[in-house]
């Protein structure tokens, strides 16, 4: 039967969020509102040392003086920061040795998400640090990692047990007063992941964390700190899904990566927070600060697939401080219905012979707005800096928008910078060609979109690449241009 455009549109519109369900787990939730007392209480609750409490308070002090940024190309009702509960953790909090002891309801949640923890443990060789709301519930494969001297735990644990490391590096890449949301996160972060790879160690498996927002009205303030010591290598995966909600949820995470001399960090993200329904109600606000610091010969590679969230505001960046360091950014951002994404990267070239690559693919459908915003900065001492940027946008339908805001600032004559951007739609002839060969329109679009984003998909680790491809299809089904 012929598949008409109308039908496709209908199907797309009725496509409800697949993972929109709510797990009923008793949570230990703080009263709503933010004050110095709440910050101290969070810190106390987590049994943190005094320096950490002071650090949080300092961040809170800065935050109070800051105003919410408005430069991003997004429109939304500003969150009421006094109407958010800043701490929520699953109540039953024993540390499990095996998965069998985990709350069965929680395990059920994972099943619905399509992640079988056991299976992943066995088949994929992935250590999964599951963050259900804000506190780490299960950490697997810890032993294998420990043998290599790799520390992979929740940040609250690290604050207690590896205090020196955390103290030295936290806030070193994203200072407390870096921006409004980073300051907020610094003051109230509830949990997150911490990872340390010792000198010369190649992490034997992909490290991954699944983040979920679970408790109604709870902001999620994740803090991730990854340190790769000299000559080490780690690949870190992060993926998100969140249940349906009518009110907007705030997610303000901070991720700090530190790659010391000769180290390499690969950080991949698949983001599929609840994007709101087709009328544009609900959905997650995703205001994230992600930044990495490269020392000599180090390399940081960001790969992201952004399909979810009502509003995304995210710029994974690289500070190329050491000579010969490399920064990479590969991104696919898909927006549909009323989603808004303002995402991109910053490449700050400070050292000599530094190189950076930016590949950004934006796909907008429905009534969504998709922006690329990037900065390439070459400082006067960065001899022979090299950058290549490519931003391509694909528009589906005539009610969406694609925007590019690339900033390029160069202060060194030996720099070589190239930037190119294109905007286009899926060609009717391309679809016709596929139709002619018996591929229906929907499949054809999936095919073309996959081809369009291949450069980025290829950069994802295997397990994620499959998931990402599926996500792209789900997000765009039936969006005929």
């Amino acid at each position, binding site marked *: 039967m012929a598949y008409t455009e109308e039908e496709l549109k209908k199907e797309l519109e009725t496509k409800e969020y697949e993972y929109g369900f709510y797990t009923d787990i008793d949570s230990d939730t703080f009263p709503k509102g933010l004050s110095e007392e709440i910050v101290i209480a969070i810190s106390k609750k987590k049994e943190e040392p005094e320096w950490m409490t002071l650090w949080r308070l300092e961040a809170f002090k800065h935050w109070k003086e800051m105003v919410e940024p408005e430069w991003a190309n997004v429109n939304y009702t500003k969150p009421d920061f006094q109407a958010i509960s800043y701490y929520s953790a699953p109540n039953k909090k024993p540390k499990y040795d095996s998965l069998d002891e985990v709350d069965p309801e929680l395990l059920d949640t994972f099943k619905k998400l399509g992640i079988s923890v056991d299976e992943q443990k066995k088949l994929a060789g992935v250590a999964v640090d599951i963050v259900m709301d804000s506190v780490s519930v299960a950490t697997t494969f810890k032993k294998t990692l420990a043998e290599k001297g790799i520390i992979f735990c929740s940040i609250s644990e690290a604050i207690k047990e590896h205090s020196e490391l955390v103290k030295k590096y936290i806030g070193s890449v994203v200072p407390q007063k870096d921006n409004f949301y980073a300051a907020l996160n610094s003051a109230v972060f509830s949990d997150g992941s911490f990872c340390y790879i010792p000198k010369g160690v190649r992490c034997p498996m992909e490290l991954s964390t699944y983040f979920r927002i679970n408790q109604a009205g709870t902001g999620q303030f994740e803090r991730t700190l990854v340190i790769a010591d000299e000559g080490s290598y780690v690949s870190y995966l992060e993926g998100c899904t969140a249940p349906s909600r009518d009110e907007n949820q705030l997610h303000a995470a901070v991720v700090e990566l530190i790659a010391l001399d000769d180290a390499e960090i690969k950080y991949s993200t698949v983001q599929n927070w609840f994007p709101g329904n087709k009328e544009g109600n609900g959905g997650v606000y995703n205001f994230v600060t992600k930044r990495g610091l490269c020392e000599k010969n180090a390399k940081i590679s960001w790969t992201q697939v952004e399909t979810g969230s009502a509003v995304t505001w995210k710029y994974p960046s690289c500070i190329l401080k050491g000579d010969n360091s490399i920064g990479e950014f590969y991104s696919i951002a898909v927006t549909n219905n009323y989603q808004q994404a303002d995402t991109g990267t910053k490449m700050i070239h400070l050292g000599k012979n530094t190189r950076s690559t930016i590949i950004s693919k934006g796909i907008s459908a429905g009534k969504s707005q998709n922006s690329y915003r990037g900065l390439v900065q070459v400082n006067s001492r960065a001899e022979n800096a090299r950058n290549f940027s490519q931003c391509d946008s694909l528009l589906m339908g005539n009610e969406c928008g694609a925007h*590019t805001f690339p900033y390029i600032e160069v202060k060194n*004559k030996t720099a070589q910078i190239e930037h190119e951007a294109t905007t286009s739609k899926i060609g009717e002839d391309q679809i016709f060609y596929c139709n002619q060969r018996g591929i229906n329109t929907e499949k054809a679009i999936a095919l073309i979109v996959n081809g369009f984003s291949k450069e980025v998909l290829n950069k994802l680790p295997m397990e994620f690449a499959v998931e990402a491809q599926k996500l792209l299809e789900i997000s765009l089904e039936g969006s005929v241009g």
Partner: protein
Amino acid sequence: MDLKDKLISSFMAFENNVDIEHPVHDVRTEAMKNFERKGFPSKKEEAWKYTSLNSLQKIDFSIFPREENTLEYKNVKKYFLHEVDSYKIVFVDGIYSSYLSETTHDGVDICLMSAALTKPMYRPVIDVYFNKVASKDESLTSLNTAFSREGAYIYIPKNKMPKKPIEIIHFATGNEASLLLQPRNLVIAEENAEVQIIERHQSLTSNEVLTNSVTEIFAAKSAIVDYYKIQNDAPSASLIDNTYIDQKDKSVVKVHTFSFGGKLTRNNLNFYQNGEYIDSTMKGVTILGDKQHVDHHTLVHHIEPNCESHQDYKGIYGDNSTGVFNGKIIVDKIAQKTNAFQQNNNILVSDKATINTKPQLEIFADDVKCSHGCTIGQLDEDALFYLQSRGIPKKEARALLMYAFANNVLESVRIPELKTRINKLIAKKLGVNLGFDL
């Protein structure tokens, strides 16, 4: 007293010298209110992120020149494009110089804004066009509107074309220690009309000059407008040039900007495509040295379907100079089949030079072809070596390569004498004599 306060109080003095009963004066008063509210733009504003007006605001500019000055043609001949015959509208310290000018009312109107704003016969045109496309929001444009009194007025009726190109030249003699000029130009090309205009600002001394110029261009159906801006001013002169262009069906407007001189130059070039099958072209060559600062801001607003826009800006930056390019393309939802192309290439020849570029696309329609490209690099060492190995000295070889780099832009200059003139300016700026014409 800072410059803003001085301007506000000068406005009252200005009102004593103009006809405040004329409807244009309401426009002026409204604009003054906007400027009072907004003041000079600061670096905190996105559009002025890379260009600071702070140091200019500290200068005690004279707002009204005290006396009329005369210049001998032989002393300033070199600033005219004297190889071809042209209509000339010349201003000395902001005041019209009838001695140096050559205006006409023969079939076309090439005359003065002051006449157009006061004489009743121009009222119908002024009512329809004056301050219609210029921004009512941007503070420096408002400042110019508030003090608008003098400038060039060019009206080309349907199916007409002036016999020769038009030159608009503003001289500053340095009689004042520091002078603020605010010329206001209006160019109207009616249906199927064609016009070529060359604009130049020239300071003759080392005294400070700040020019805040606004030009409105209206191109009706199938009209063709060629506008050339030569910015090769003295090192003490600064220019803020605001150009607003309103295009109708099938019109073609080309603006070429050649920025070689001046202390601080800011070009705000805004195209609004109010029709179909429109072609808008903006091209620029920028060659800077010393501590010069040039900021190109372009905007093309594609409002209707089936239009095209082309942008090509080349920059060569030496010494401590700073270059800024900010090109914005907006494609509205209904502007399907738009073809927008933007290219910005830069060469840095000094360690202390800076380039900030931001090619920006905002697209709301799906069936469009929009692309932008931007590069920053150096001269090709291999090409340099090749030329040297053929006996061309390094300096000339470098100049030759830079020439080639800028040549794309020069190709579309339609007045041969102007092209030669610009070639000479480029050679001079690069400090070489190539001994042949390119």
